[in-house]
């Protein structure tokens, strides 16, 4: 078969975004096309850039707490967790045991709602409208539970250095238990509706070839990495908070395609439910906030704190100089590195498959742009 180029057809440039339903935010991708094949996709970033790292250097550390939630709007509590974690580590403060449990419980609920939204929109990107209606019904339950205790539904600012801002009560525990039961009862339905759907499988099986070597070259983390067979999860590899106290698995797949990333994420839903169950059973009594000096200064020195966000490895690197304002704060976000492999991954692929790949990476653009 002669290629289009040999037939004298020119390559053309197609602009995808910055507003496009498949880019899940203001991301622009310049696609160099040959017919329906993408020959060179180049992401253009920065439309949502707010310079959070500069803001951290311009205000005292407590005033940065709300910023943490505004990078990844789908994992605000996990970003909260990382930020209070890095300040605690630098200042040598330990949160109370009950607070650590509450942090894990709320973080896992946050992870579940992120995975549920991803499940809905991935399938939506591929042209099926129905599943997102079901996942939103589930997700709504989590948002209602979290709203009662944190006061917000999306951009939470719930964790504080030394603990959390409000205690959880019996009603919260009861509703979360009900939710766990509900979510488990829904999974067989998703299995039939989505996982077993032949059209869906044809769209993502053997699409995208992620490999362990490519992962190392680009710093790929999260469920997509685990889809290549590497069981790397910060909750297990560099345990933080009270995660070592729970029994859970790190799901992996070996095929390294979009289907593998899909299966890993769906199986992670069950693992998060298991962590929630155990945390609710073991939840210790006691204060939800440790005694912390009213005007806490950050000592000179540096510290990192790494957490597992729904998309991969999130690192806060904080450098203090003895004042209450950070001298420097670097925030390493997972989607940034994960998206950077798009040009290598998607060259030579059909345009519709590129949408499947971007959906599998579960991109959150405000997190990349920061």
């Amino acid at each position, binding site marked *: 078969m002669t290629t289009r180029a040999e037939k004298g057809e020119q390559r053309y440039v197609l602009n995808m975004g910055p507003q496009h339903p498949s880019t899940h935010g203001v991301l622009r991708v310049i696609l160099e096309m040959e017919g329906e094949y993408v020959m060179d996709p180049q992401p253009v970033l920065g439309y949502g850039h707010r310079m959070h790292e500069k803001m951290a250097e311009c205000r005292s550390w407590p005033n940065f707490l709300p910023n943490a939630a505004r990078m990844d709007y789908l994992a605000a509590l996990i970003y909260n967790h990382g930020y209070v974690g890095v300040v605690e580590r630098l200042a040598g403060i330990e949160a109370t045991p009950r607070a650590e449990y509450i942090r894990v419980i709320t973080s896992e609920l946050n992870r579940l709602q992120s995975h549920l939204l991803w499940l809905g929109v991935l399938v939506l990107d591929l042209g099926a409208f129905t599943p997102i209606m079901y996942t939103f019904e589930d997700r709504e339950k989590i948002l209602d539970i979290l709203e009662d205790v944190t006061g917000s539904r999306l951009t939470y600012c719930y964790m504080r250095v030394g603990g959390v801002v409000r205690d959880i009560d019996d009603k919260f525990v009861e509703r979360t238990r009900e939710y766990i039961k509900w979510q488990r009862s829904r999974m067989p339905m998703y299995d039939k509706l989505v996982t077993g759907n032949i059209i869906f499988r044809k769209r993502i099986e053997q699409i995208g070839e992620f490999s362990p070597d490519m992962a190392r070259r680009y710093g790929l983390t999260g469920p997509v990495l685990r889809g290549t067979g590497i069981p790397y999860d910060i909750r297990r590899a560099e345990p933080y908070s009270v995660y070592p106290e729970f029994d859970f698995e790190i799901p992996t797949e070996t095929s390294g395609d979009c289907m593998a990333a899909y299966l890993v994420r769906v199986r992670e839903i069950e693992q998060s439910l298991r962590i929630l169950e155990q945390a609710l059973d073991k939840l210790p009594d006691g204060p939800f906030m440790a005694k912390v000096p009213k005007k806490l200064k950050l000592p000179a020195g540096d510290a990192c704190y790494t957490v597992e966000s729904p998309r991969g490895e999130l690192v806060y690197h904080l*450098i203090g100089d003895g004042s209450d304002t950070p001298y420097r704060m670097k925030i390493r976000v997972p989607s*940034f590195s994960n998206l950077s492999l798009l040009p290598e991954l998607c060259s030579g692929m059909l345009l519709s498959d590129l949408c499947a790949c971007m959906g599998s990476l579960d991109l959150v653009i405000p997190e990349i742009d920061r």
Partner: protein
Amino acid sequence: MESKDSVIAAFKKIPVTVEEVQFAQRGYHLEITLEAGQLRAFAELLRTGNFYLSFVSGLHLATGIEVSYQFANYGFPCRLLANVGVDADNSVPTIADIFQGANWHERETKDFYGVIFRDHPNLKPLLLAEDMEDLKPLLKKEKTLKDRAGISRTEPEAQPTPAVKEDA
């Protein structure tokens, strides 16, 4: 390389200054100081040792700009932070051909600090707009600059204070 100790042993060949730090207090295992001229050999070594690049970042000090590289390993717990002082012409060699993920991280560091990564394939603004190339937002004003000593721990690393068991 399959353990932290073998990594430290391998670094002796370059040679770079390696300090083992307390993970509980610092959140990483090894702190490394090296010259810009050693950077590529250092990156090659980590590439053959199956490390991945976590991030590249900058730091503006009174003595000049430093570039930091964080690497970690999927196989065993070994997170390391390497600090490199830039050369007199504000540049360091690129590692984007060794770790392709460094491409964007280096462009971001160029945006924020103006550091030139020599032989980078495409050092155009990434997060900033093209007409903001001279902004260099993370450079500090002279009076707020500190030196290395001003941001280093003064006392030996202590155990974290235990939580107070009473209501705040």
